[in-house]
């Protein structure tokens, strides 16, 4: 089992020696995940807020649907996205297959249910007295909406971080849609899969540690946004 220790040493070497292949994979991972996070937050937060805030018919059924979508397997999303953007698929003309944009589309589908469901939960679990208090203070509907939005910011941040964790670590979509092409769509996770397939276990472990290091960096960057 000496490859575990070798993996640790290799991880440090890969990160600090500026290994081209590793940094290319890091770049691909960050590019795809940034794109998908931007898209899923833009679409997901308003939808999640609406789902938690407003009362409307079929709300429970919709919620059930979103919660079920939390269990979408990544390989399945990858396969469906592939079918759509393949050259013989309905969106084939756009040339999205084997691109980071294609990966980002798949990852957005993966992240959306997480963002929506967790944002909705955050809104639902908001202090019920707040609404009554704000109304008694003479807040308009508009003011009520915005102060509620402000109140759930930590919940939304948690939703974003959870979704980011899923997006960064998925391998099914990146492999199927991206094709694991060296210098282009090879992300850290597909590189781990490849190195494992080649029997280079220590390199695989090293890349895994690199991924964790990045996740740590992202969390450090966002920690100042958290509740003190």
């Amino acid at each position, binding site marked *: 089992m000496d490859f575990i220790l070798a993996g640790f040493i290799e991880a440090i070497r890969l990160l600090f020696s500026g290994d081209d292949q590793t*940094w*290319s994979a*890091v*770049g*691909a991972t*960050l*590019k795809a995940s*940034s794109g998908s996070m931007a898209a899923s937050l833009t679409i997901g937060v308003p939808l999640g807020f609406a789902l938690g805030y407003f009362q409307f018919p079929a709300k429970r059924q919709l919620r059930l649907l979103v919660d079920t979508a939390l269990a979408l397997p990544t390989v399945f999303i990858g396969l469906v996205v592939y079918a759509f953007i*393949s*050259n*013989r*698929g309905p969106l*084939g003309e756009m*040339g999205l*297959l*084997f*691109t980071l944009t294609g990966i980002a589309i798949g990852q957005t589908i993966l992240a959306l249910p997480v963002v929506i469901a967790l944002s909705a939960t955050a809104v639902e679990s908001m202090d019920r007295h707040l609404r009554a208090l704000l109304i008694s203070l003479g807040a308009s509907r508009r003011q009520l909406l915005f102060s509620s939005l402000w109140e759930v910011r930590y919940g939304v941040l948690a939703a974003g971080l959870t979704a980011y964790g899923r997006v960064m670590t998925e391998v099914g979509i990146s492999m199927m849609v991206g*094709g*694991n*092409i*060296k*210098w*282009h769509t090879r992300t850290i996770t597909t590189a781990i899969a490849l190195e*494992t*397939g*080649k*029997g*280079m*276990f220590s390199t695989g472990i090293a890349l895994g540690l690199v991924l964790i290091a990045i996740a740590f*960096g992202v969390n450090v*960057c966002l920690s*100042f946004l958290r509740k003190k």
Partner: protein
Amino acid sequence: MHKKKQMAVKVCLIVVLTLMMAIPAMTADNVLMMATTTSTDNTGLLDDLAPHFTQATGVELKWTSVGTGKALKMGENCDVDVLLVHAPSAEKTYVEKGFGVNRREIMYNDFVIIGPESDPAGIKGKKVVDALDAVRAKGAVFVSRGDNSGTHKKELSLWKATGAAVPEKETWYVQTGQGMLASINIAAERNGYSMTDRGTYIKYADTMSGNPPLKVLVEQDNILLNQYSVLSINPERCTKAKFDLATTFSDWLAGTEAQGLIRDFKLLGKPLFVPNAIK
């Protein structure tokens, strides 16, 4: 406190921006997209050939390495321009169906049957057909790729050659659905037999510091030869396929330079492929 926050934001922004800049932009023109099998990629052959090809022709080669079954499917869906695969009978059907054109044989390597040194079914040195019969009779563990890859298809053809039914649900027949090295590792854990291409086995032996638990037991039988061919995607079906670039690649692979590179390509001091293109 406020200043600290501002600093943190700035630092994070700088980190993100530098990372984005560091990534080379994608180029779309003069790029040939190939689907190939895991063996050509995992052995490092393509990493060796690609720069020479770009230097000789100015065409950039990009490839995705998947099982032969998936590679053929990608070509059928017009998602790639050219294929480098090893499943001769499936390739011929593929050309007959009009998915691929200009099939050209490039090189071959060979398969071997490996197993534990103790060799419970006693197959060492036998002919392939006799060896598989012995494995079946003994009910010894045999690990199969089970993933419709070129290697898997080859293995199935060997079982067919024994004249009896191809094993499927037998408890001793383990279908992994995974890559070659993963399958070899499973065979080692189960103390079983498996069939692999020689290149992957050499790599495997090397990662085990030259003393692998599984040894080559059956080899040098004509039935074990493994032919690799290049196929262009039919431009009449897939109008976007870069047929001219695919032809350039095919011609280059069959040419003197590439055939020499293939002959000289060695893994851990051992040659892996034998070039056999007919000009």
